[in-house]
């Protein structure tokens, strides 16, 4: 299928969450694929759509509530400013290892040849329009078109 001499040739990555920790893995994997010469598509669905929405893409936050790996009780995570603080700290560490903020990352993966798509069902559910998305977004597609696009490659859900 997508493997030739044991090498992955193509990946289609789904980003379904809208927290910072929810969107970065997919962006890093898509970018990393291009860096290795692997074809890559990104499909944004549900809250993952915030990654490519002009209004929200620079405001994504780390989830500090209901996340045991934060090593803080949820009631602490609920305090005003906690999520902003965690986001700021993560952003600083990421900058050190050259991982860009979300809007710049979206532009970078696009320039690297990743095609970006928004999920039709979510767009309809939230009454969104093409204009709500950043210019890097190729199209709004349904799940059938997603599978067509993903044909011959691996699908990764995040």
């Amino acid at each position: 299928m997508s493997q030739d001499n044991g090498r992955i040739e193509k990946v289609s990555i789904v980003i379904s969450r809208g927290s910072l920790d929810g969107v970065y893995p997919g962006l890093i994997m898509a970018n990393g694929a291009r860096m290795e010469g692997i074809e890559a598509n990104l499909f944004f669905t549900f809250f993952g759509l915030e990654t490519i929405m002009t209004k929200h893409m620079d405001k994504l936050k780390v989830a500090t509530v209901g996340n045991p790996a934060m090593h803080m009780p949820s009631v602490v995570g609920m305090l005003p400013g906690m999520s902003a603080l965690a986001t700021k700290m993560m952003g600083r560490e990421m900058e050190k290892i050259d991982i860009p903020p979300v809007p710049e990352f979206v532009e970078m993966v696009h320039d690297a040849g990743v095609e970006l798509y928004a999920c039709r069902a979510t767009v309809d559910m939230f009454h969104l329009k093409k204009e709500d998305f950043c210019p890097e977004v190729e199209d709004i597609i349904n799940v059938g078109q997603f599978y067509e696009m993903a044909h011959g490659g691996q699908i990764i859900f995040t």
Partner: protein
Amino acid sequence: MTTMTVKDRSIEVNEEGFLVNPDDWNEEIAQEIATREDVGELKEEHWKVIRFMRDDFQANGKVPTIRRMKKTGGVPVKDIYRLFPKGPAKKAAKIAGLSKPEGCV
């Protein structure tokens, strides 16, 4: 360990084709690696990237990321992918006589 012959000189490279001894590097060797990597003839645009990578490595001891090539080196991401198709960071590092990039971006 394998070797690569450039103008009757035998150069040591590892199994992925990176130079074993960075001091072996010169422009003829860079061109030979570029040919093997299907990058073709190195033009001024390529040399600009290669020189930036080598200078940056000298200054910081790390192979620059694609983002760094863009932000600090002033080379647009699209150009990097066009100049070094199919795996730009690794290919450019190899041609520049540097080691394999270690980071995830």
